[in-house]
């Protein structure tokens, strides 16, 4: 399932290309953006299907409720902007109009996480998963590489109901063999088998976890690596089985440690398999400007920092 071809690709390009493919097959697909179509790459869809593309301008709340109206009439609606503006600014519209009416709106947000980089804290969505996860009846998905982005977008187009799909600004290293990997919303994945600890991740931190785990293996620490692209609805079994075996769980995400995957893991474990859990993400803090790799290091999310942090965690009895 994993690939040896570590090519680096833009998930936003993948998103735009996939929209065009889907739009060709299905005339019901419409796409909305809020003046960021060149960043989110919904512009690709606009070029091919201008009549099914609506630029709502710098008015994200209007975009979300307009998307709701289109979806109410049977359209499959993709609405995109940066994760910061797609969630926090439109929370009421998403909750009270899209989700309460269970409308078929796919919010595909780019620029999730600290790796927005130089734009700094105002643009770094570190709470978006937390916001979305708290709303009933919305699926929350954080794909980890471009082959998964493509499949998640296809899944979204073919599955009714509200979804929040988070894509980073950064290019992503290939993780999955696109010919063998099949995204399944019902089953999280075990990517590596270990006995000493469980590491749970998704999104762009997954590759960091895989790299850190290689180094941990060199010092004799073997980890179960679990990929949870679907944060909500949360699937408990794989995590439960792994935690019962290893009794130590580390969660790594490009998001605040409050309310995201780390919280979802803790909520699950406290019910099904109480375990020691170490949540690695941004602390209860705002981000700041910086180069992407520098920021990953600074906030302890790079493979190197993860290795150091997990080593420390493993020493704690």
């Amino acid at each position, binding site marked *: 399932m994993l690939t040896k071809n570590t090519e680096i690709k833009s998930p936003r390009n993948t998103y735009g290309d996939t929209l065009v493919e889907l739009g060709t097959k299905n005339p019901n697909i*419409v796409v909305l953006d809020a003046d960021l179509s060149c960043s989110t790459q919904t512009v690709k869809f606009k070029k091919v299907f201008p*009549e*099914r593309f*609506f630029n*709502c*301008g710098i*008015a994200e*709340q*209007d975009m*979300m*409720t*307009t*998307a*709701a*109206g*289109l*979806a*109410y*009439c*049977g*359209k499959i609606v993709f609405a995109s902007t940066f994760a910061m503006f797609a969630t926090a600014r439109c929370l*009421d*519209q998403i909750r*009270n*109009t899209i989700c*309460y*009416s*269970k*409308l078929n709106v796919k919010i595909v947000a780019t620029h999730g996480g600290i790796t927005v980089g130089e734009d700094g804290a105002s643009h770094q969505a570190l709470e978006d998963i937390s916001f979305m996860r708290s709303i009933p009846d919305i699926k929350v998905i954080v794909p980890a590489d471009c082959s998964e982005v493509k499949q998640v977008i296809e899944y979204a187009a073919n599955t009714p109901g509200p979804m929040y799909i988070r894509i980073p600004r950064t290019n992503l290293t290939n993780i999955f063999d696109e010919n063998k990997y099949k995204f399944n919303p019902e089953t999280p994945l075990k990517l590596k088998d270990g006995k000493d600890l469980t590491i749970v991740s998704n999104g762009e931190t997954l590759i960091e976890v895989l790299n850190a785990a290689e180094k941990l293996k060199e010092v004799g620490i073997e980890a179960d690596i679990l990929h949870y692209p679907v944060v909500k609805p949360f699937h408990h079994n794989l995590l439960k089985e792994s935690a019962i075996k290893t009794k130590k769980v580390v969660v790594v995400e490009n998001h605040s440690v409050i309310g995201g995957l780390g919280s979802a893991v803790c909520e699950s474990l406290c019910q099904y398999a109480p375990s020691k859990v170490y949540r690695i993400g941004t602390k209860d803090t705002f981000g700041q400007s910086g180069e992407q790799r520098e920021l990953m290091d600074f906030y302890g999310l790079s493979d190197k920092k993860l290795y150091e942090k997990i080593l420390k965690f493993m020493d704690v009895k």
Partner: protein
Amino acid sequence: MKTFTNKLRCDILKMIHNAKSGHPGGALSCVDILAVLYKKVLNIPKDWDKSPDFNTRDRFILSKGHASTALYAVLANCGFFDINLLNGFRILGSKLQGHPSSRANLAGVEVSTGSLGQGLSIAVGIALALRLDNINSKVFVLLGDGEMQEGSVWESLMNANHQKLDNLVIIIDKNHLQIDGATDEVKTLEPLDKKLEAFGFKTVQIDGHNYNEIEKALIEAKKSKKLTAIIANTIKGKGVSFMENNASWHGKAPNDEQLKAALEELC
């Protein structure tokens, strides 16, 4: 029509009295408009999604969802659902939620509303979808004047104009009052007509309790190819003397005596 709207007003008050909560003021201010809409203007099948004409129906969105009792009363009295359901308003398990809910699966209710400032955008999305599908129905949306203070309303006014929607009609129930008092004192909207015109709308001012004026404005707007905003000047609490022009009746239920007095006025 007067007999019909009196019946609607009585139902509204009974619902709110029975539930011991609700929003009489804004329901009574817009109920005449809703009565004319459903009796004379909208082409919506009473058997709702069972009708072969369901997809080509006109759409009505009650953006000021707190006036739900007005919508429920009109729908029930027009035969969309069993009138006895009105007794369940705001009661656990009822289809008649405090604010209209599409989850409740109640014939005649389109999308959920209640959080102000969203109905117009929803209507714009519906209008866009109808245009894409070449369906010649009209989308009517009713907003409160206080609701116009929500910034999101102006975002969607801009969008409606930009998209040159000729299948959308906006009605503003201008009852001049909101929870904290007079709209002019809380945060003035004036000059509302000029603002709407600057946003690309043709505006029509009517007496929102004069059936002829309401009908004429709605029918003309329905035929018009120009974006129209109907500003309906209304009286909050209209029809019940002690509720009229009194902001304190925005969200309060009448007690037994008050209900009796109100029904006596209306019958």
